[in-house]
């Protein structure tokens, strides 16, 4: 019997179920092993864990996941158990420590893999093969296993072994020119998207393929290998913009000069709003919003391409009005008139947003060290499987005893020895 089955048979240990009722998640019963660090891989596994899959996250003993060392930290205290970044990316997972370089560590890894549906790993190309844990080795142990590898440039090609931090991956995938649009000042560098957003995308893209492979496994009983290049995942997210040069020979400058439209991000009394009016009735709604000023009665304002040509002039007029109104006022009044306008929200604005409150987008999390805090949940609501925060992000090795002891059957003494030898 494989170790995962014990749970289904109700033979779980006391601590396994302490304080929690097992929720009926969408992915209830799917078993995932995560051997990742940073953002993309852990975010991919978080998506699946938040949907109810059982995720065992393996961290190397001692240091652990790199986001444990990245802020924001609770109370700005750079303690690896206080990283809010790690807390966010690892909800609903169980945490193990395991040294895959030691023979007993490998042995344990194979036992975990034998009953798993999916392994997500983000090691450098060739690394897993090098330690005897490549797809071919694992497939022999479990032909139904789906292995997803996530690397900056994929497993072939001239940049395969190049080093890339998130900044590099974002820029070499075209995001500096094609995503934050426009980054208008050519004297300044193209700019990446905020914080690590470009690292979340590949995790999201990988989750699609993993779920599709799970559906196929349900039909065929077979697993497979999925290769994800972060660069390609990011290019695919700008797929329309990326082919503009190839198809039209046009150089989509980051100044946005090809297709200026009135509107865009503009300042207002207490921040910024964004306005976009691709349809005529939306433009008319905008004019009503700002009180039908004299200039808006001129003939040229009714003609799209003339408006585009005089976008700067129009924006100057708009700003004059916007600066006398708050972003909330502009948002609600504009939307009531049918004008697509929105405030640029900060996390603080979001925390106080009625829309989020009604949708219960933030929910409470209890962490043994950080304490109580609110956490963002998920962008979808399933009618039959409501979201649950089953467990907070794990402490380093928090579930070693439960999994190695309770499920693999190691005695307390053996666990002590594994710890001493640095295996766990």
């Amino acid at each position, binding site marked *: 019997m494989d170790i995962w089955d014990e749970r289904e048979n109700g033979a779980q240990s006391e601590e396994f179920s302490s304080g929690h009722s097992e929720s009926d998640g969408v992915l209830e*019963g799917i078993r995932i092993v995560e051997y990742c660090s940073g953002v993309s891989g852990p975010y991919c596994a978080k998506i699946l864990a938040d949907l109810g899959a059982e995720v065992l996250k393996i961290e190397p003993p001692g240091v652990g996941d790199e986001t444990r060392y990245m802020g924001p930290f*609770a109370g700005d205290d750079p303690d690896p158990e206080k990283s*809010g970044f790690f807390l966010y990316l690892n909800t609903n997972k169980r945490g193990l420590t395991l040294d895959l370089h030691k023979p007993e560590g490998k042995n344990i890894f194979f036992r975990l893999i034998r009953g798993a549906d999916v392994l997500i790993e983000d090691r450098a190309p060739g690394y897993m093969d090098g330690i005897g844990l490549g797809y071919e080795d694992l497939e022999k142990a479990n032909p139904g296993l789906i292995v997803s590898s996530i690397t900056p440039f994929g497993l072939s090609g001239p940049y395969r072994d190049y080093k890339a931090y998130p900044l590099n991956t974002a820029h070499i995938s075209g995001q500096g020119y094609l995503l934050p649009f426009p980054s208008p000042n050519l004297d300044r*560098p193209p700019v990446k998207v905020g914080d690590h957003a470009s690292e979340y995308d590949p995790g999201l893209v990988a989750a699609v393929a993993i*779920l*599709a492979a799970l*559906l196929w496994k349900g039909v065929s009983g077979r*697993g497979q290998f999925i290769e994800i290049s972060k660069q390609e995942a990011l290019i695919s997210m700008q797929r329309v913009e990326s082919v503009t040069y190839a198809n039209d020979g046009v150089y989509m400058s980051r100044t946005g000069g090809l297709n200026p439209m009135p509107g865009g991000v503009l300042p207002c009394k207490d921040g910024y709003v964004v306005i976009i009016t691709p349809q005529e009735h939306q433009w008319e709604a905008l004019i009503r919003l700002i009180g039908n000023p004299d200039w808006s009665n001129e003939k040229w304002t009714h003609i799209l391409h003339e408006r585009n040509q005089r976008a700067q002039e129009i924006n100057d007029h708009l700003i004059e009005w916007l600066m006398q109104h708050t972003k909330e006022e502009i948002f609600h009044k504009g939307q009531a008139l049918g004008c697509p306008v929105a405030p640029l929200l900060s996390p603080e604005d979001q925390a106080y947003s009625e829309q989020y409150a009604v949708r219960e987008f933030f929910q409470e999390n209890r962490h043994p060290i950080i304490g109580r805090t609110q956490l963002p949940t998920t962008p979808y609501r399933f009618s039959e499987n409501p979201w649950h925060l089953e467990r907070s992000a794990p402490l380093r090795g928090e579930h070693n005893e439960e999994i190695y002891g309770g499920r693999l059957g190691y005695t307390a003494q053996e666990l002590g020895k594994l710890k001493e030898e640095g295996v766990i």
Partner: protein
Amino acid sequence: MDAKNQGPLKGLRLIEFTTAWAGPYATCLLSLLGMEVIKVESRSWLDHTRSRSFSTGRNFDNPDQSGVFNNLNLNKKSITLNLKKSRAVELAKRLVALSDGVIENMRPGVMRRLGLDYDAVCRIKPDIIYLSSSACGQVGPQREYVGYAPTFAALGGLSLNTGYEDERPSNFMGAVDLRSATTAAVAMLAALLRHQRTLKGQYIDLSSQEAITVLNGEALMDYLLNRKVRTRRGNRDDVMAPHNCYPCAGKDNWISIAVASDEEWQALCRVMNQHELENDPRFSEQGARLRNQDELDNIIIEWTRNQDCYHVMEVLQEVGVAAAPSLSAEGLFKDPHIKKRKVFRQVDHPVLGKHWVITPPWRLSETPAGIQRHGPLLGQHNDEVFLGLLGLTASEFEVLKEEGIIF
């Protein structure tokens, strides 16, 4: 094009009622993975991507001439139904009854008015997976607010957190929709997987605003934990320095360089031939580099500004320093690694001719995703779907066309 669809979702069918980018690309992802996707559209409510491109500013005279539409609707089938007519709605329902999933991104309330909302559809297909994608979600005071990619990025917090500190925050365009689209694909597949195991359907309410919000985790957590509101910082990082793009030879060419350790810093100094900097207290350890990064950036700019960006990448990668050019659409198309991995490919399109698109972003060993067909012409599959799948007679079909129901 790939001869036969071998994707993992072969055998599943989905009906979509979507326009623009976020809805169509969600189902495009599924169709690249082998699902049969039937797009319901109409001359009476034409998808605006068939009429114009916001990226290039081009307008199209003919609904089959849009490269944007092609790129976002690969592999799909298109049928035309004027849903303002009740018989068209009946036909749509008959299609739903033969399907596994539905995705729609109409303004909340529209599908109910049409009689195609989840409750109505459930009566004929109780185990359907039905996903609604909207700007702010189906419930809440802002449920009827209208939005496009730029408003999703604004409401999602990404705009305010992107750009230079001393300039306006960044605007975002259509590409933001593809994040919402990919999120929708995840939700649909998860529900299909549950259906495979339990035979139960369900309704999914997806908010594009929230799909962007969840990508802004660090800024959210900083506020939720510490009540701190982060500001945009260009290309800079909390920990690493140097961490920026530096100008290279030519017009608007830049190289991104990020240094995470003292070893990498020393290697960078050696390549720049500035050995004295290695032990310069202004830069010798990470905290100091972070504090003095303006000065540091100027030193690196002096070194990169007259060099080819690919040359800088090579010499730095050779010594283990992370460096990569910042690529434009032209740069992507010409990049040797991207070429070697065949990220761009052409599809044959009856109106556009050979047209470049981006290949699927996953490589699956047993069930490869693939491109079998160009984005469909408007109503291209009316015959196949109405005569074949629904089994209408030729004369019924003709009457429905004449009466503007299949339109």
